[in-house]
């Protein structure tokens, strides 16, 4: 039987007082905010801890928030599921928009490899320690990160007009 969200949130806050910044429950589906430096250890704990066993990383994605704190933020969102206990969990990491650096979680969940490449491609989040951080959807010589709110559409690519 999967643990309820408030129980998980309390457990994580007690275990990682530095890394876990708190749970957000008043904005639709709840999530837990984690500091960039703590995301790897929190995911590793969630994966191994009996009763939780969030062993499946469903997806990694990102959200651009130009009106966020300190000149804009980029959120990296991790969706987890447990194949043994059931239940899902969402974690978020908030990064400064100017220099979004986030440690890779490929050491804990190898499946994050392509997801982080996509988040890099679309939003420009640099995953430090990633073994193969290249663009995955856009061509390798593409300019800009298309899911940034201030992204400017290309005039042309490869000699083909885009207008």
């Amino acid at each position: 039987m999967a643990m309820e969200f408030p129980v998980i949130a309390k457990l994580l806050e007690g275990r990682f007082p530095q890394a876990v910044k708190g749970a957000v429950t008043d904005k639709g589906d709840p999530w837990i905010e984690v500091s960039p430096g703590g995301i790897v250890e929190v995911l590793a704990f969630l994966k191994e801890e009996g009763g939780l066993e969030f062993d499946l990383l469903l997806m990694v994605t990102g959200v651009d928030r130009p009106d966020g704190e300190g000149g804009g933020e980029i959120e990296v969102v991790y969706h987890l599921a447990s194949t043994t206990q059931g239940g899902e969990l969402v974690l978020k990491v908030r990064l400064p928009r100017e220099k979004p650096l986030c440690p890779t979680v490929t050491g804990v969940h190898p499946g994050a490899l392509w997801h982080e490449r996509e988040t890099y491609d679309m939003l420009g989040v640099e995953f430090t320690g990633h073994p193969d951080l290249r663009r995955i959807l856009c061509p390798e010589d593409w300019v800009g990160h298309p899911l940034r709110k201030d992204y400017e559409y290309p005039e042309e690519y490869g000699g083909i007009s885009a207008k």
Partner: protein
Amino acid sequence: MEGEKGGIVQPAAPGVLLTTLDEALDWARRGSFWPMTFGLACCAIEMMSAGGPHFDLDRYGAGAFRPSPRQADLMIVAGTVTFKMAPVIRRLYEQVPDPKWVIAMGACACRGGPYYHHGYHVVKGVDRVIPVDVYLPGCPPRPEALLDAIMALQAKVDRMKTFSAGKAGEGGKEA
């Protein structure tokens, strides 16, 4: 070599039919398109359906889908053409031996379709990459519509008249 065109003559000798080389070439070409097995998006599902038994593209002689451009003479661009895919399409087209034809299938291949305004990654029409013979709108077009495009292309090939148009040796493209 249809009767209505009067391009075929039966002389007195039994078992002999006479026609022009142009008529014979156009007849053979329009009756045996070999499309390339090449789908880019959801339109390809409709193309596959057109090739299946219900719609039976083989009725038009156009059901011999080839896995290599070198064996094909018809390129059905079925789906969204992205900037990343454009150079690949160009290369495939250049690998097809002459004479060759292109059908732009679906709204995306015709003009970018639903990505026209907000698709930063979509080429606004495959005709910016390769020449197109028949434009087939729809999102996606039904298999009957693809059959209609094939028939439109057959009508075009029927007008090629390679030799009388002085186009022999120039790839057989219609002027």
